[in-house]
């Protein structure tokens, strides 16, 4: 089965610093999409950022950016100027075949004041 791997179960960062969350995937599809979702404590899961595999340019959304290395099948999330509200579980996911999204096990990020 194709899998998404997040090798860091837990991470912490000081407020205002930068942190990078790792993700690797192993899809053999040519057309696919990659996602980072955020799940704050006791709150709804929301989309952070998304990357189309055919695009070479790394996606960015304000303080969130990705480092997409297609050949290495790596898709890391960088959070700049970390804020207390960034404390959450972060899930990496890939999507292909029009409906089949696979999630990693998640990384629990704590931003410390």
């Amino acid at each position, binding site marked *: 089965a194709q899998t998404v791997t997040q090798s860091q179960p837990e991470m912490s960062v000081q407020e205002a610093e930068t942190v990078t969350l790792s993700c690797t995937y192993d899809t053999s599809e040519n057309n696919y999409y990659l996602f980072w979702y955020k799940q704050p404590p006791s709150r709804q899961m929301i989309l952070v950022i998304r990357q189309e595999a055919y695009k070479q340019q790394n996606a960015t959304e304000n303080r969130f950016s990705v480092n997409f290395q297609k050949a290495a099948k790596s898709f890391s999330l960088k959070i700049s100027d970390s804020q207390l509200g960034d404390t959450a579980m972060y*899930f990496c996911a890939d*999507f292909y075949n029009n409906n089949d999204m696979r999630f990693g096990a998640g990384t629990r990020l704590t931003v410390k004041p």
Partner: protein
Amino acid sequence: DVKVTQSSRYLVKRTGEKVFLECVQDMDHENMFWYRQDPGLGLRLIYFSYDVKMKEKGDIPEGYSVSREKKERFSLILESASTNQTSMYLCASSINLGTQYFGPGTRLTVL
């Protein structure tokens, strides 16, 4: 904004009971999904539906069934709840191209 709602945030049931989890979305999305979320395992797909009355098995369909009689509503049914079905259940919907919108989740405890 897309809104996905789930009927309960917390639910406690007894072994052997029939359990219904309801999910409603208000954006006319074709696709709807049920996941369960367990620590260390991420989200695992139980069932999904790409149209009314259509359903497809996900990775872990055993012990579950689903119903989609209307486009906006997708129900997950546990025919005879068991303790190993204690989990967080997440519903999601999407149009196409992957981006899924999630409900707040239902934390089910089976005693």
